[in-house]
């Protein structure tokens, strides 16, 4: 009987937590991490600042600073590099959420959706959230060596360019489709 009590109470608690989460307004996607916030204010994407970022994360620069600069400067550099890494991580997340937003828009406006694609996207979202939190926590805790962050600049450079192209391409296609749909205004075979 106690097991029954536990099973039902547990289930209801989970449901209430999910209900609360579902009723909350959508979360602000971009935290005011220094980098992305600045980029948004200036109206540029992070890809525009790629050369500077790549320089800031370059291993040679870091080694030079650690070997030649006083300790407090080296500490400051390490802090700054971590801040940049976090800002870029936010940028990656922003890109991910932009894609998700676009996907949900297309799904909303489609007469048919494929369950397989939708479930795959949910799976990818969960995996991304997990990876993001892990990387974020490790960066915050200083567990990822700053010198090893060169991989991040590669990540961002490749990603940003491809994402930018992809987003533009997909955005244009979606906008074109939306325009077509509205011009049909209920007369087309797939228009309600």
């Amino acid at each position: 009987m106690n097991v029954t009590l536990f099973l039902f109470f547990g289930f209801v608690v989970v449901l209430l937590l999910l209900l609360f989460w579902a009723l909350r307004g959508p979360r602000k996607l971009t935290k005011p991490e220094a980098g992305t916030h600045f980029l948004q204010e200036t109206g540029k994407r992070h890809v525009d600042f790629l050369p500077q970022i790549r320089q800031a994360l370059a291993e040679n620069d870091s080694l030079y600073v650690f070997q030649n600069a006083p300790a407090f400067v080296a500490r400051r550099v390490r802090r700054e590099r971590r801040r940049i890494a976090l800002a870029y991580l936010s940028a990656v997340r922003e890109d991910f959420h932009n894609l998700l937003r676009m996907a949900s828009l297309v799904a909303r406006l489609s007469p048919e959706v494929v369950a397989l694609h939708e479930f795959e996207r949910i799976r990818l979202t969960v995996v991304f959230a997990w990876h993001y939190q892990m990387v974020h926590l490790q960066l915050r805790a200083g567990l990822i060596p700053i010198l090893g962050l060169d991989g991040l600049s590669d990540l961002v450079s490749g990603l940003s360019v491809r994402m930018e192209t992809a987003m533009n391409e997909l955005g244009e296609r979606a906008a074109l489709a939306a325009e077509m749909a509205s011009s049909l205004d209920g007369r087309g075979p797939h228009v309600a």
Partner: protein
Amino acid sequence: MGIEISKIQQILWAVNAAVGVFLLVLLAVRKNYRAFPVFSFYVLVNLALGVLAFFMYRRWGFSSLSSRRIGWGMQGAVICARALAVAEVCRHLLARYRGIWALAWRILLACAVLVLVYSSVAAGQVWERALLAVDRGVELSIAAVLVGVLLLTRYYNVQVKTADRFLAVGFCLYSCFVVLNNTILERYLHHYGALWNLLGMLAFLASLLLWTWALRKPQTAAVSQESLLPLGIYESVAPQINLRLHSLNERLSRFWKPEATRN
């Protein structure tokens, strides 16, 4: 006359009936029965059976066999009406989007069946309390379906009208409460009976007030569908987006494990 009904229960019964009548009047005056015909029917059925139950219990008391049989029969009718009303609310929330709705109602139905199975497994084989277990299972399914539909609206960034949201929350909270109440009743059957009724009525009163608040203004009748994209767009864009999400994930996971990046 059967067992005496406590004063508090009688007062609460009257209050519930009064709020129910007020809600019905509101539905009629604001013409919200056009937007929510099944919900209006549910409120009407609930009110009518409540009045019937009142007179039945006064006549035969709570513990007579006739009262129990008719009472559970009425409870079954009310739950069916509630399930239909919940389906209507789900339709209001998502049916504007044909593609998503076609997927969502299948998921929600599967979810309801799974939760029913879960309930029956979790309840075990206590045949003398089978009705209570079925009642609880259906209520749990209703709550799960409503949470599911609200999660889907969030996932797809669907704009939800305040009235629909309040109706869904009212149903969901009431169903959750009934599940907890029934579970406790099953455990402490002999000592909890009177309190079970009282708490159930209080929870329903809270839901009635929530629904009354939600429907205080006229609602639009039809679920108008959004203008849709041609079919091919989804088929070409969705796999591409998934591919890009996948590549983002892969890169992030490589960053998470830097030693793999260096290889």
